[in-house]
C-alpha cells in the first residue's frame, strides 16, 4: 500500500465564544474535536454530515484557512498544522479549494482571465504570454469558451461559474482539492455536468478530493470512501458501497433511511430521529449522539465510544454498532 497523501491526526478546532464588554471567552465551540483521517493520491474521501457538524471547518483546517487548535496535518510528511504563512507558501499550490457559492468566491471586479491568472502571479510562474496560454488551456479543460477570459463572473450562469472556480483550483496542478459543497447550489441537470467534470479531472491529473457535502447520493457517487461526521467527530467510515449497504452506526442508518428515494414504488422504512442536533458549544457527555439515538442506553450517556473496526476497512464509533 502506498503512503497516504494526507494524514490528519487528532485534529481539533475549538473556537472561542466571546461576549460581554471585554470580549472575554465565555465558552468554546468544539467545531472539530479529535478527527483522524487519511487520503491517498488520486482518491476521493467523501465527508458527510448535517449543518454544524464541523465538516466545513475540518476542510478549512486542512487547507490551513484556519489555524487548528491541536493535532497534526501531515501532507507528504510535512506537518502543516503549526506552520507560519511563509512556511506554508510552497504547500499552498498543492492544496486548493472549491467553494459552494462561486458567486461569492470569485472577485466580481476581475475578469475571468484575471481571476485565473492570479495563482500564477502569486507563485511567480511564467511570463505574460505563457500565463495567457495557461488561462486559455484551463478554460478549455473545464469546458468554457476561450472568449470567457475577457468577461466578468456575473455574465455566467451558476454552473459556468462553478467551472471557473474549478479552473482556478486546478490552475497550479494541485494534488489535493477540498471541495466544500461544490454542487449543492446548482440545479439538478447542471449538478451532474459538474460531477462528471470533477471525475474526469481526477482521472486526468490524478487528483485527490476531500468531497464535503450533505447530499448522500451525490457523495456516494463520487467517493471511494465515505466518512460520516456528527458534532465534530467522525462516527463511521468505510468504502462508499459498504457504508450504504451495511451502515453500522445508528446515525448513519437513520441518515441513509431519511433520503427521499426518487421511485414511487419504493416504500420508505424510516428511522425518524427525535429533535435537533445539539449545540457544539455544549456537546452532550458520553456519546454525542445519545440524545437522539434510538439505541441509547445508560452507558452511552457516560462513556465516549471510540472508533473501532467493525468489518474489514470499516470503522464505527458506537457501543452497540451492528450491521442492519
Amino acid at each position, binding site marked *: 500500500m502506498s503512503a497516504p497523501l494526507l494524514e490528519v491526526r487528532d485534529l481539533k478546532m475549538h473556537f472561542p465564544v466571546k461576549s460581554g464588554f471585554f470580549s472575554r471567552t465565555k465558552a468554546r465551540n468544539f467545531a472539530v474535536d479529535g478527527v483522524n483521517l487519511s487520503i491517498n493520491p488520486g482518491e*476521493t474521501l467523501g465527508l458527510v454530515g*448535517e*449543518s454544524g457538524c464541523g465538516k466545513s471547518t475540518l476542510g478549512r483546517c486542512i487547507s490551513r484557512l484556519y489555524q487548528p487548535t491541536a493535532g497534526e496535518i501531515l501532507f507528504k510528511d510535512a506537518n502543516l498544522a503549526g506552520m507560519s504563512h511563509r512556511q506554508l507558501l510552497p504547500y499552498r499550490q498543492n492544496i486548493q479549494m472549491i467553494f459552494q457559492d462561486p458567486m461569492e468566491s470569485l472577485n466580481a471586479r476581475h475578469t475571468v482571465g484575471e481571476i485565473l491568472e492570479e495563482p500564477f502571479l502569486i507563485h511567480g510562474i511564467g511570463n505574460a504570454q505563457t500565463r495567457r496560454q495557461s488561462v486559455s488551456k484551463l478554460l478549455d479543460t473545464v469546458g468554457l469558451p476561450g472568449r470567457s477570459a475577457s468577461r466578468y463572473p456575473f455574465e455566467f*450562469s451558476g*454552473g*459556468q461559474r462553478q467551472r471557473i472556480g474549478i479552473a482556478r483550483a486546478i490552475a497550479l496542478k494541485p494534488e489535493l482539492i477540498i471541495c466544500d459543497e461544490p454542487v449543492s447550489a446548482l*440545479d*439538478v*441537470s*447542471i*449538478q*451532474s*455536468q459538474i*460531477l*462528471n467534470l470533477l*471525475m*474526469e479531472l481526477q482521472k486526468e491529473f490524478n487528483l485527490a478530493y476531500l468531497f464535503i457535502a*450533505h447530499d*448522500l*447520493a*451525490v457523495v*456516494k*457517487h*463520487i*467517493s*471511494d470512501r465515505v466518512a460520516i461526521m456528527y458534532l465534530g467527530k467522525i462516527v463511521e467510515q468505510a468504502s*462508499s*458501497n459498504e457504508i*450504504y449497504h451495511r451502515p453500522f452506526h445508528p446515525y448513519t442508518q*437513520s*441518515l*441513509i*433511511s*431519511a*433520503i*427521499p*428515494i*426518487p*421511485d*414511487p414504488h*419504493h416504500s*420508505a422504512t*424510516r428511522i*425518524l*430521529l427525535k429533535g*435537533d*442536533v445539539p449545540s457544539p458549544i455544549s456537546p452532550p457527555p458520553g456519546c454525542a449522539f445519545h440524545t437522539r439515538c434510538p439505541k441509547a442506553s445508560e452507558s452511552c450517556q457516560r462513556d465516549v465510544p471510540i472508533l473501532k473496526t467493525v468489518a474489514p476497512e470499516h470503522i464505527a464509533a458506537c457501543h452497540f454498532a451492528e450491521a442492519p
Partner: protein
Amino acid sequence: MITPLLCVSGLTTEFQTDEGLVRAVDGVSFDIPPGGTLGIVGESGCGKSVTALSIMGLLPRPNGNIQSGRIDYRGEDLVAADNARLQRIRGNEISMVFQEPMTALNPVHTIGRQLTEVVAIHTDQSPAEQIRTAVAMLQRVGIPAPELRMTEYPHQLSGGMRQRVVIAIALICEPLLLIADEPTTALDVTIQAQILDLISSLQKDFGMAMIMITHDLGVIAETCEQVVVMYAGQVVEQGSVFDIFDRPKHPYTQGLLRSIPKLTDIPKQPLDIIPGMVPSLHDLPVGCRFANRCQHRAAECDDAGLTVDTVTEGHSVRCLKWRQL
C-alpha cells in the same frame, strides 16, 4: 368525475423588468381534486414558484401581472377576485408554506402573536380561545412545551422548529389547500424527514389538498399523486407519479431522471447529463424550449405552434417526437 378543488387553466404571468416584459409562466394548466396531492417539479426559473404566487394573489405589484388564464377555486375565479375577497381566502382556505422559515416569520413578534393573528383575522374567537387554538396547533406540529414557545421569538428556535411554526400558522385555520414551496430545501436530511412526515400526517388528518413545489424528485416520488414537470415557464409533461417516473415521455423528464445520482448506482461512473443550460426568459425560442439541449431534436422542433399531446388519460406531454422515443 369529482369536481376539482382548484382548476388552473391557461395561466400566464408576466413581469415588467428593466430589460422588458418577461413571461415567467406561460399557459400553465392543471387541477387538483379535494384532498389530492400535486407536485410541481422544475429547476430555478422554470416558473414553479411564480405559479404558486399567482394562485395566492401574492405577485409583487405592480411589476407582476396575471396576463391571461383562470384560477377556479370551488367555482370562483381567483384572477377576477378583489383584494378583500382574496384576503378572506388566504391563510384561511388556501395557505402557503415557504422555503426559508426565518424570512417567513416576523422576527420582532412572538410566535404566539403570529399564530393568534391568523385566528383573529379569520374567526370570531375570543382572545383566550385564540391562545388555546394556537397552543393546540403548536402541540399538533410536535413542538415541545408549546405554552413556553408562544412567548418566544423566531430566533430562539432551531431551523426545524421554525419550519414547524410556519406549518402551524399555515394550518391553524384548517385550509382546504396547502401550497408548500420547497418546504424542506433549507433543512438537513434528518429534519427534512421529520417535516415531510409531519406534513403528510397533517394532510391525512385535515383531508386537505396540497401542491408540493420542489426541485427534489425524491420528495415528489414520496409525497405526490400527480406531477407537473415545468421547464422555462411551460408545463412540458404532466401525469400520475407512476406515469412520470415509470413511463416518462418528454426528453427533459427522461434526462432529469437519468441524471440524478442514485444510491443504487455503482460509484465513480460518469452520470448521464443534459448538456447545455436553460434558455433565458428574455430570449426564448419560438419552437420547443428544450430543443437546444435535446438529443432527439429535429427541424420541425424549431417551428412555432408546439402543442400538448395526450399520451393516455391524464398523461400529457409537450413534445413532437414522443411517439418515436
